[in-house]
């Protein structure tokens, strides 16, 4: 996929409007989300119990035994506390695992739903939308953007319901245990938070730079490897290597700069944390010596402070996660809000029997806000008639196909199929009547059989094979290792242009539409395939109305009538003989051939 520039991320870490739109996706799983939150609360309580047990042990049996060796039941008490600790540890293990699994399952299910609704929504959008948006970016919408939301659902929910609760809860419990010590800790915690946020914002900038250097390095390497032949032919190895070195060195420098930030981050956090802990030792030491505090309480305090450091350190990271998740959600909903430009009327015309009559009445069309590509085009095609369309590149031939299948709507005038405006049809019904064989035949991942019947399993395998045999595709398909069940690799990279066109012809025969539109391949085709293609065309044309965009004389010969397009206008129409006699554009074309 080509590297691309992402739209800038907007700054908000929480956008109520977007969250409200995400809620319906989470609703089907509300029970499991509730369960997950319950488990988190349990986890929090269990986490609090562990230092508590240690405190009771130190201040209880351990101290008692030290004061008088004969303290009755001290040993027994210690063992009971150990058992309690074991039970808590095991419970915690179970809770944690259950919570993780439930939350991941919910997260992945929601993402799956989101992905599917984005994808199926895209299926209904019109070609004009796809013209405006590069494929790479759309793929990012259904993959990366949704993946970013994963963070929101899995770690995001955890952070809101756990890390924040944990910070507040732990501070509350600490205050309750010993307000003075808590005061000391609260002096240090804001510093910790500030350090963490300062480094993170730096890190974000550094990462952006790294990303751009990495993509430059990759782009350069790719360019170099793809052009290696040219580099060698022109003896440019050294110069290209010098230029590569610049990119390579820049890449290293960006990494080293970013790493400086990291190298400082953890030591700084560690220093601040340790200062807080050492302060606690100082103050509680005085307290213990003065008899106001117990060792066990100090120990409990010490361990619980540890609970605070991790979430605070990660809070800033989570903030970034939220920011990018919001940006992704915004982009995703932007996509889902995109309304299809082409849709059928509420009560579409339902064709009973397709005849294959086409009429264009004074059609003018242009893409987007662009200039007119077709101007005042009118013609009529009788059912079963074969029309060849001839014209230079840019004459509007492809546009004509797009309009007939109603990928776009005309600017003015109208297009009628079987006497009804194409806008009266449900686009699906309309397209069902039209068989397309395009220059670049598109093969879907899957096997040859599925590529002919296009996933419509109501069509039998026999019928597909029959169609392939009629167009002469059977021969090369049989030669493939698995015949009709051979997988198509990388969009048909292994099939030649001619073979792909034969498959497309077989598709048409299988679906039996009343109209055939052919945009002949311009690529070089060897004479043998050419003969096969002409035969296939003959078969396919039988009993159908056809519009042929012809690049070969052999194909033009199949036509009853030739329409000559020039600069978006219909200039000449007639049979081969008539057009030659008229002495116009077509004639000149013909003359050139023998000139």
């Amino acid at each position, binding site marked *: 996929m080509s*590297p691309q520039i992402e739209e800038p991320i907007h700054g908000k870490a929480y956008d109520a409007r977007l969250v409200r739109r995400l809620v319906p996706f989470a609703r089907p799983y509300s029970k499991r989300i509730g369960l997950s939150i319950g488990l988190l609360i349990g986890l929090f309580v269990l986490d609090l119990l562990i230092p508590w047990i*240690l405190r009771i*042990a*130190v201040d209880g049996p351990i101290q008692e035994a*030290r004061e008088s060796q004969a303290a009755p039941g001290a040993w027994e008490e210690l*063992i009971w506390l150990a058992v309690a*600790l074991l039970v808590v*540890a095991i419970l915690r*293990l179970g809770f*944690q695992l259950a919570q*993780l699994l439930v939350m*991941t399952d919910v997260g*992945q299910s929601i993402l799956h739903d989101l992905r*599917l609704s984005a*994808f199926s929504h895209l*299926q*209904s959008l019109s070609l004009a939308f*796809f013209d405006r948006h590069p*494929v790479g970016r759309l*793929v990012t919408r259904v993959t990366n953007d949704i993946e970013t939301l994963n963070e929101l659902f899995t770690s995001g929910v955890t952070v809101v319901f756990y890390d924040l609760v944990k910070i507040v809860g732990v501070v509350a419990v600490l205050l309750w245990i010993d307000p003075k010590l808590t005061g000391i800790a609260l002096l240090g915690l804001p510093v910790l938070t500030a350090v963490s946020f300062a480094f993170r914002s730096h890190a974000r900038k550094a990462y952006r730079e790294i990303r751009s250097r990495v993509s430059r*390095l990759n782009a350069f390497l790719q360019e170099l*490897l793809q*052009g*290696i*032949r*040219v580099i*060698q*032919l022109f003896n440019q*190895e050294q110069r290209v290597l010098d230029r*590569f070195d610049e990119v*390579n060195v820049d890449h290293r420098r960006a990494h*080293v700069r970013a*790493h400086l930030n990291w190298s400082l981050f*953890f*030591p*700084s956090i*560690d*220093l601040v944390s*340790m*200062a807080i802990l*050492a302060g606690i030792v100082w103050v509680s030491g005085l307290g*213990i*010596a003065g008899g106001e505090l117990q060792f066990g309480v100090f120990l409990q305090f010490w361990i619980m402070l540890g609970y605070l450091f991790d979430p605070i350190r990660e809070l800033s990271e989570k903030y970034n996660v939220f920011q990018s998740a919001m940006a992704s959600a915004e982009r995703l909903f932007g996509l889902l809000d995109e309304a299809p430009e082409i849709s059928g009327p509420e009560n579409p015309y339902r064709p009973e029997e397709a005849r294959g009559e086409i009429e264009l009445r004074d059609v003018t069309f242009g893409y987007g806000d662009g200039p007119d590509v077709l101007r005042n085009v009118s013609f009529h095609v009788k059912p079963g008639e074969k029309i060849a369309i*001839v014209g*230079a590149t840019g004459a509007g031939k492809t546009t004509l196909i797009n309009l007939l299948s109603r990928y776009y709507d005309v600017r003015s005038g109208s297009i009628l199929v079987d006497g009804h405006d194409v806008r009266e049809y449900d686009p699906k019904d309309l397209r069902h009547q039209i068989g*397309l064989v*395009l220059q670049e035949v*598109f093969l*879907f*991942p899957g096997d040859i059989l599925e590529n002919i019947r296009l*996933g419509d399993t109501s069509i039998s395998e026999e019928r597909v094979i029959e169609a392939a045999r009629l167009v002469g595709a059977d021969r090369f398909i049989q030669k493939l290792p698995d015949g009709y069940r051979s997988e198509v690799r990388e969009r048909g990279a292994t099939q030649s242009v001619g073979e792909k066109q034969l498959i497309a012809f077989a598709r048409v025969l299988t679906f039996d539409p009343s109209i055939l539109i052919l945009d002949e391949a*311009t690529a070089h085709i060897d004479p043998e395939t050419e003969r096969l293609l002409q035969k296939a065309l003959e078969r396919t044309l039988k009993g159908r109305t056809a519009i042929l965009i012809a*690049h*070969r*004389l052999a194909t033009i010969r199949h036509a009853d009538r030739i329409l000559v397009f*020039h600069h978006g206008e219909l200039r000449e129409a007639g049979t081969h003989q008539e057009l030659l006699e008229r002495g116009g*554009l077509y004639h000149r*074309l013909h003359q*050139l*051939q023998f000139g």
Partner: protein
Amino acid sequence: MKGLARLRRLICVHRRWFIAGLLCVPGAVALELWIPQLLGAGIDMVERAVTGDGDGLGAIGGRLGQLFFVVVGLTALKNAFRFGMRYWQNIACRLVEQDLRHELVAHLEGLSASYFDRNRTGDLMSRATADIEAVRMALGPGLMYLLNTLLMLPLALAYLISLDPWLTLALSIPLAGLALTVRFMGPHLHRRSRTVQDRSADLSARAVDNFQGIRVVQAFNRQAAETAAFHDLSKSYATAQLELAKTRGWLQVLLGGGRRLCLLAILLVGGSAVMSERLTIGDFFIFIQYSEMLFFPLMAFGWVLGLFQRGRAAWDRLIEVFGARAEIDPDPGVAPKRDLSGDIRFENLTFGYEPDRPVLRDLNLHIRAGETVGIVGPTGSGKSTLARLIARLYPAAPGHLFLDGRAIDTLPLHWIRRQIGYVPQETFLLSDTMRANILFGRPDATEDEVEWAARVSQIDHDIAEFKSGYDQMIGERGVTLSGGQKQRTALSRAVIRKPGILILDDSLAAVDSETEHRILDELEVVMRDRTCLFISHRISALRDVDRLIVLEEGRLVEEGSHEELLEAGGVYARLFREHNLEQEIEELP
């Protein structure tokens, strides 16, 4: 692991950074181990005050204050070491990464065309990026954390044993369990995350296919079937994610469990030791801190072993590339003193890319210096192969191909390439300015020569229309050139070399026929006393050349002028007729 000499040399070049980074490790480890002991001693001091064995309350206050500043000071020093170790090892291994990549690219540039036919760009890319990265990870963080663990573990254990061997033993069991868990679950985790990546790639590929073919999807009303297919892929991706989360969850849970088992051991064994006064409260506290502290290096140990494994596999793949030798000897003999006059002779030449499948057979052909020759034939007849052999992209068998009377296999590669301007079918342009792309052919050319080359290639008018003229950036960061513009630019960079032999390998296919004709006419004038070889699918464009050569299935079947060959009514005459109509219809004004 073989071929370590290269790596050793690179490490040696940057040794001062490696040494600086690694020297910081012992300092950091020593302080890391010392600080908890100081705190433990502080607690013992407090306990003695409580039981009345030690100093009074007043003295304690001063001592605790002292302790605070000492601990904070030492922590600052420790973190200075930690910073040094991270920062310098990073510089060190990034420098090795950079040099290694430089050497890899330099090596690749020296390999022959056939190597690049066998090895795909994507594969070579992943060696130059992911594999080198894996080697860096082993050399940098891998080495550093290995040393850290190797120092910290025995020292900490020795100290703990001196305090209480039984508690140390009890503590080692969960700690060892932790190390083993990471060691054995690591690869599992790695596999699972590979699966997730693969599934994600499948998903993206399907989306790309669908969006690119949306027209066909809609034409054949395939939306529901496509969504169903996507649904399945999305589901299996989600399942893979869930599996990964499960493994990760188990790892996390087991690690957390191990941590709590450590606390349990300390409570039970340590608690009873304190009760029987074998240990002080301060020692009890030291055990708690050490168990937390040992946790990370032990976990890192399993991770580091994984790093070394991956680094090793990556290094083996890199060695494979470094081990590849150029098929063509670049310096088989001395370069001629005179420039190439352009005489080309094939004598009984047979050549194929694979041993048993000849593409050219028994070719005998003599092209005289200054001649303009057109090469014609159906696809796969060997036209491009013939051109590639002259440019020595592929090696002809010794003694069958001669340039100016000398066997091509005795000429230095750089000399041949300097003398030949070859414009291949596929155009490759740099994402750089127009001028840089033309100068690519001859970096020392003057501005006048650049403009001249652009004029001959008929790209000068296009350049004049660019906003920044010759300084216009092209490619990703600039204007996108049309196919024809790209080909004309590629031509200009060959023309600017004023080569002894100019070869156009169907390199004007995207240019309209009128322009192609003009270019070829212009070339005949400016290349009057040089040899030109034109290959074109547009046979009509070659009408005016001195001589036409017709190839069919690797054999020379006809030669002569356009008129002669038309009259002969053979292969050429047929091809000419067939292609003409097609061409003219396509290019109707």
